[in-house]
């Protein structure tokens, strides 16, 4: 028996509203599969399951708002070691699954779906079909009153669920997001003893390298500096594990990989910082694609649960907004945030000569419980050196 619970999709989330189940009882699911869509205060998030199994029961109904940790569904695991036994678990038929993974006895006459011929299309007017699509009404469940019993426009409008809350959701969501950000940031400043460091990093090598490499790439696949900076941060973090992970229950837990949360501002206001997984192991081209995809989905409000809950560190880049540096607030339970400002041309002394050089100010906000300024400084220095060897990125 697997209990599928509402995961926390970020430190600022304590409840969520189920929008939609993507599975139904009897469905086999695979680890990593999206099985539900949950509305948090920030976005509609596709929630993944972390076990293989078969869905037994969907407990939460779409539209319900439930707390983090609430059991939303029960599943039978297929041949996996049983989850820690729960005293309270009623376990109606615990034995079957463990011994015989092959054919779990489903409910009688599990529907042999493929062999049933599709029903004839229900007559409905073009206007009715269009409106049904807009209102998300299932035409097959509507009684038609048009000519020859066809479903007409009025039938659809009668069948459409009345809007439960006439208030438009948009301003609500904005207020909710503001509240969520307020809660997370207040918690951060209340609990995390921040220290701040900054370092000016010459960028001419990185810029030249990027320009050269981009010449060989089609326009649509050109890599932007943001992706290169992400990779540099991730590679450097491999050697500074105390900056990559979580502060939980009074101790530091290193992250299982370098999953970099990317701060993305949303058009209607507010921001999210979903993760790109294993940034240190990806090529620049892959990162660029992942980044573009993430921004698009974040703004469309369709992020996955793992992206919301997995970041082990956050990178924010406010260079495009024109500022030279950003000293960020750490997103709990993470322990560090790296900021980049605008790349500006500055007088730069190097090897006894003065030259005009493009320079970026990189900053580190560190959690003093997990690391000290000394290590933080060495991290920034290593990041600087990494950016002088762009060919490694």
């Amino acid at each position, binding site marked *: 028996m697997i209990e599928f619970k509402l995961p926390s999709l970020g430190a600022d989330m304590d409840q969520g509203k189920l929008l939609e189940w993507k599975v139904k009882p009897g469905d086999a699911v695979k680890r990593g599969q999206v099985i539900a869509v949950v509305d948090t205060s920030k976005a509609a998030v596709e929630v993944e399951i972390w076990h293989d199994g078969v869905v037994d029961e969907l407990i939460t109904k779409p539209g319900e708002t439930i707390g983090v940790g609430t059991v939303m569904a029960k599943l039978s695991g297929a041949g996996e070691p049983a989850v820690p036994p729960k005293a309270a678990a009623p376990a109606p038929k615990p034995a079957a699954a463990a011994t015989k993974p092959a054919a779990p006895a489903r409910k009688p006459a599990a529907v042999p779906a493929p062999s049933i011929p599709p029903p004839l299309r229900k007559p409905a007017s*073009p*206007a*009715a079909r*269009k409106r049904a699509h807009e209102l998300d009404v299932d035409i097959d469940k509507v009684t038609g009153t048009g000519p*020859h019993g066809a479903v007409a426009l009025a039938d659809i409008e009668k069948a459409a669920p009345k809007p439960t809350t006439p208030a438009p959701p948009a301003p609500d969501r904005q207020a909710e997001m503001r509240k969520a950000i307020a809660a997370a940031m207040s918690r951060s400043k209340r609990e995390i003893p921040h220290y701040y460091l900054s370092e000016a990093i010459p960028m001419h090598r990185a810029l030249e390298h990027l320009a050269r490499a981009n010449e060989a790439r089609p326009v649509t696949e050109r890599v932007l500096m943001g992706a290169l900076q992400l990779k540099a941060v991730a590679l450097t973090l491999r050697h500074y594990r105390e900056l990559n992970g979580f502060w939980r229950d009074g101790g530091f837990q290193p992250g299982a990989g370098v999953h970099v949360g990317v701060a993305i501002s949303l058009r209607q206001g507010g921001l999210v910082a979903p993760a790109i997984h294993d940034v240190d192991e990806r090529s620049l081209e892959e990162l660029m694609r992942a980044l573009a995809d993430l921004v698009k989905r974040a703004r469309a409000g369709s992020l996955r649960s793992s992206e919301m809950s997995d970041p082990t560190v956050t990178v924010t880049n406010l260079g495009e907004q024109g500022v030279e540096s950003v000293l960020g607030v750490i997103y709990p339970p993470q322990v560090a945030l790296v900021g980049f400002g605008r790349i500006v041309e500055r007088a730069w002394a190097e090897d006894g000569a003065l030259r005009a050089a493009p320079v970026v100010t990189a900053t580190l906000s560190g959690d003093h419980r997990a690391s000290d300024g000394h290590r933080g400084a060495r991290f920034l220095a290593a990041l600087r050196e990494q950016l002088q060897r762009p060919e490694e990125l």
Partner: protein
Amino acid sequence: MKKISYREAMREALREALAADPRVFLMGEDVGRYGGTYAVSKGLLQEFGPERIRDTPLSELGFTGAGIGAALGGMRPIVEVMTVNFSLLALDQIVNTASLYRHMSGGQFSVPLVIRMATGAGRQIAAQHSHSLENWYAHIPGIKVLAPATVEDARGMLAPALADPDPVVIFEHAALYNTEGELPEPWSTDIKSAMVRKPGSAVSLITYGGSLPKTLEAAQMLAKEGIDAEVVDLRVLRPLDDETIMASVAKCRRAVIVDEGWKTGSLAAELMARIVEQAFYELDAPLARVCSEEVPMPYAKHMEQAALPQPDKIVAAAKGLFG
């Protein structure tokens, strides 16, 4: 506002055109001494003389061709053909010459010719004088096709037709000549748009020419049954005013086309095709049409009436679009 018959409105329009422009003249069978087969040009011979009101031999091909020649030569001829059935004899001149000259001459020649003809049934003049072949002309690029259905259009459409640099064919439904209506002063008439003759919201009844009075009557019958029908008068059969048609269909979401032509290959068929092309997703019911029965128009009165679109048929077709 004055009360006037369709015939008088047409005659006034002719008189005005003849008086206004010395290049304008009228020719056709029996237009002079007999006063016109439908008495439209009665009195004009006395008023304007035989130079400008010219009786022609029974030769549609010949006098239509003469009209084209006169138009090319700088005149503004109005050619009257007795009925659309007889105009088939002049099809070669209209389709192969008048409509093509601008194209064939690379834009050097235009044919500012107006051809008037009677059309339609309902007067017991039998099959060879009673058919509705407007769609034959509406098929042809290069000409405009008008179907005045009210006294205002009968009075007003001739002047812009004469001002048009290309051939214009005007269809006068024979059953309309005796109808009377209020002529607003001043009237305003264009030759490009369809018009909503009665606004409504539940079903769009789209028609033209001689079927307009029947369709308006049907709309009143439907109103008694609680169905608020809109009546669209096409007025111009080529080019069709898609915008007005689609706006009405989009509003009512149901449409019945009323067309005195035979159903097969009809203007009604063209309208249905356009509605499906342009407003498919607005439709809340199948399209319907009321056309003439596919028989030669009978002579016997009861059979002729049975073969034609009638208000009760329009009402039945419209009601069929509701559950």
